[in-house]
């Protein structure tokens, strides 16, 4: 196997506000390899976005936010780089696309200029070459008439088109890793499918690694090879797409899967939609033991509310589960189905 493009070890993130410190990410480990898509799944507040922002060091600076652990890329711990060196990593090494296509472009600059800007500060290229590259990128992301559209302002484009511009911007320097933070959440379903298809095509062509953050298992099944489920700042289940979707061992993953709306094959008949009772606990006030046990239908006193379960291998492969009961034979009679 090739070396990972990015290795995250024991990533811990704390925010400080008004003299109080809150830890929102508690020791996250993962690797991403070239050409691979790793999906990071979880509810709002699970720490998935914060984790992705930490990789690019886009969180507020210390003392407001402390990031510990290591984020290594090519043997360098990004967390130890100066802000200036980090700026050289952003763009050519790691790029990011965001959840809100309507607000993530500056409304007062032409979209072509905003893409050109991403190139200009990293590569010594002539104006004409940059212009040609911008047109090439806009063509790549499927914007019609790019030579004209590059002069448009973001306000003159639809959400889907703007997200394509953001993607063009992120791809401008052919990054080793693309972080996509819910890039399709704010878009129409049809546009969502187009954007996913676009990302997949580009990835095939460039062997770029992708960290795809989402709360939508439908999207995960479309795009990811490996899946990581996050809850209350910890990874609770991790494995191949097949492992996690066909054989989820953590009750939280099952709950998420059950809450994906699905049409049955025949006659559009649907069963009742599953829900997970309650809310993600506040990071200030995590329950003892397994963070999920107060909401877990399988929780047992004495087992689940004692010690925090380890993220342990389930079966022979690379399927990791953080659940004290996952190896009990009777636990979870039948796995959730995957559409």
């Amino acid at each position, binding site marked *: 196997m090739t070396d990972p493009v990015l290795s995250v070890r024991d990533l811990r993130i704390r925010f400080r506000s008004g003299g109080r410190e809150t830890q929102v990410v508690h020791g996250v480990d993962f690797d991403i390899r070239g050409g691979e898509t790793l999906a990071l799944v979880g509810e709002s507040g699970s720490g998935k976005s914060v984790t992705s922002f930490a990789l690019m060091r886009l969180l507020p600076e210390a003392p407001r936010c402390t990031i510990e652990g290591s984020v290594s890329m090519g043997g360098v711990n990004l967390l130890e780089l100066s802000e200036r060196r980090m*700026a*050289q990593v*952003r763009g050519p090494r790691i790029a990011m696309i*965001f959840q809100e296509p309507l*607000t993530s472009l500056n409304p*007062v600059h032409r979209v072509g200029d905003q893409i050109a*800007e991403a190139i200009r500060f990293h590569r010594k290229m002539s104006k004409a070459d940059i212009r040609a590259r911008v047109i090439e990128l806009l063509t790549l992301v499927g914007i019609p008439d790019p030579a004209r559209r590059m002069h448009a302002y973001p*306000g003159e484009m639809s959400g889907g088109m703007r997200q394509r511009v953001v993607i063009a*911007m992120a791809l401008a320097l052919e990054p080793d890793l693309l972080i996509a933070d819910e890039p399709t959440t704010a878009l129409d379903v049809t546009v969502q499918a187009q954007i996913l298809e676009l990302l997949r095509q580009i990835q095939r062509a460039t062997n770029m690694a992708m960290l795809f953050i989402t709360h939508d298992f439908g999207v995960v099944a479309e795009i990811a090879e490996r899946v990581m489920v996050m809850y209350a700042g910890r990874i609770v289940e991790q494995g191949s797409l097949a492992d996690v979707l066909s054989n989820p061992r953590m009750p939280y993953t099952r709950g998420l899967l059950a809450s994906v709306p699905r049409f049955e094959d025949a006659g559009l008949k649907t069963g009742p939609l599953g829900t997970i009772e309650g809310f993600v606990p506040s990071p200030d006030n995590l329950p003892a033991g397994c963070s999920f046990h107060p909401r877990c239908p399988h929780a047992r006193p004495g087992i689940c509310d004692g010690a925090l379960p380890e993220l342990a291998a389930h079966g022979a492969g690379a399927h990791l589960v953080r659940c004290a009961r996952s190896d009990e034979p009777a636990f979870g009679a039948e796995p959730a189905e995957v559409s």
Partner: protein
Amino acid sequence: MIRFLTHRTLQGIVLILIVSMIGFTVINLAPGGPLSQYAMTPGMSQQDLDRIAHQMGLDRPIPVQYLDWLVNMVSGDWGKSYRDQSPVLDVVWRHMWATLLLMGTSTAIAVALGTLIGVLGALKRYSVFDYMATVGAMIALSIPTFWFGLVAIFFFSLELGWLPAGNMYTVGDQSFSDYAIHLIMPSIVLALVNVAIWSRYMRASTLDVMDQDYVRTARAKGLPRWRIVSAHIVRNALIPMITLAGLQLPTIIGGALVTETVFTWPGLGRLFIDSLGYNDYPVIMGLLMFSAILTVIGNFLADIGVALADPRIRLG
């Protein structure tokens, strides 16, 4: 754009008309009047006064006087000063450039310094600098201009003797450096409040922009910090400031009033005060019209400026 321009021009004309009507009425309702100057002349009889009133057209009903004034004003004749019979437009014109020099210098100082302090304060929020700027602005806003002017004159003119205490130039020496040295104190005194106002607005606007998603996108592109600050933070934070600048244009008259009096600066502010004292109605009306026209032009320029700076407005 053409439709917008005609629309705003018509709106402006209506506004100026209304201001002129109210102004004319209020001035004529005030006790005293231009004749009270003549009444104090020894040996002046009621007959003489009536004759003067008739000559000046003051014996006609006020609406008639107003219409007469309006027709003349539109055709470029703003009347004659009661004080020295010179045409009002000439009087205003003579005093205007003194005010423009003072306001221009002081506004340039205020905008440059205010923007700088505001942006730095926002970028280094809650730093020692930011706290000092906040407290400094509060102090600057609370100090009365006349008091600060007098204290400045006391120290820099009387005690230290570095700067002249007033006037725009030394009689007989009208060199550039002479103007410049006379300009220093009044323009700084006048700028003080505006630096405070401008820096507070700029700080708030900058903080607002810094939280925007597109600033995060700019960081994610790996742009150098100076580029993020200039092209994505300050560039956007200045847009609301254009409106503020437009609103400040008419304060050319009102804003310099106190400063011009303290520093005996021969500008529009002092002209206004003097004309009030003399019941010089044509000049007062002229200044009122001038200020109304500046208000309209200021808003107009601000709208155009915002449209130029912000494609959302231009294309929306």
